């Protein structure tokens, strides 16, 4: 699967849930959102190899 995060695209082979993906990047689920194929997904959603995934940081400096 292709994962876009912080301006880079990562190619991952391993099947993961959205929550495991955040863990892999050491990201807090309270501060990030996972969008798979332009759809917002919950942390238990299983991501497939064909998926195009974006991780969005939701916290700003305020």
């Amino acid at each position, binding site marked *: 699967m292709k994962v876009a995060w912080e301006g880079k695209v990562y190619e991952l082979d391993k099947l993961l849930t959205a929550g495991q993906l955040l863990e892999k990047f050491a990201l807090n689920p*309270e501060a990030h*959102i996972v969008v798979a194929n332009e759809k*917002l997904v919950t*942390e238990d959603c299983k991501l497939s190899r064909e998926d195009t995934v974006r991780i969005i940081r939701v*916290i*700003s*400096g*305020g």
Partner: protein
Amino acid sequence: MKCRACGKEANIRLSAYNTALCADDFLIFFERRVTRTIQKYNLIGTTDSPLVAVSGGKDSLSLWYILNHAGFSADGIYVDLGIDEYSHVSFEKAKLMAARLGRKIYRFSLPALLQKGIGDLSKLMKRAPCSLCGVLKRYLMNRACVDCGYTVLATGHNLDDEASALFGNLLYWKEEYLYKKSISLEARGDYLAKKVKPFFLCSEREAAAYAILRQIDYVYEECPYSVGAKTLLYKDLLNKIEITSPATKIRFIKGYLDRVKEEGARVDPGRCTRCGYPSYTETCNVCKLFERFGTGEALRVECHEPANAAFAQATLTEADSVQ
């Protein structure tokens, strides 16, 4: 994970409420939360004309969108701080939303007024850019609200903004700020507009999810001056607590709201002897700034009115009605 309301596949988990919702039910939940906050705390009345402080970020653009959906005819005010590409892109996003809603957007441009951006000013004054930004935005947004005849200034401050600010103020016992961060500050005379925060009880994650689901085109990039800001550290710490103890942030802020009601005696600002706007000193900081760096031109606000206002309004009603 299933949506608690309809049983369909969920799109967002809300651990603070021990629930998960699909996209449609989340939009209903979020909009209802904002409108109920507005009603419960008397933030905006039916006869009010609100002006939204717009930065081009997810919170302010979503707030502007929701207020117009909820029947408030809200225009926007944008302060261009002259942060190169970041300011340019932010204003473009704000103008896009103005066109989508068919509403006016006002702009104060710091480079046009002072021929300097916030970075240059910060160096010249030996003051942190974020602190200067706060002073200028508070002044200019209040002034736009009062001068242009709006009755209430609405900002997109969310639960995480408020919890992190409260955390910081408590950590260093900044008692002078402790009771100034409430959900609403009433107007004073004809020089200080009422200020409200309709997203006070909505988390930053919820606001981002709302913006994504409503296809609101916002600036994802951080302000370049926010790198290393303490606010970000406090938000990170609070989110780590939130993961192990869900609903900590909302309890923290609701507890604050209960206490601020009891302790909320407010010291009213006086008026600047030069411009007549709020100041705790004889001359306000912005007048001092303009005296030192201004070009001598009067402070002016530009107004951008979408050419397709009528069309945009019609499109909004048909395609984006509140669910």
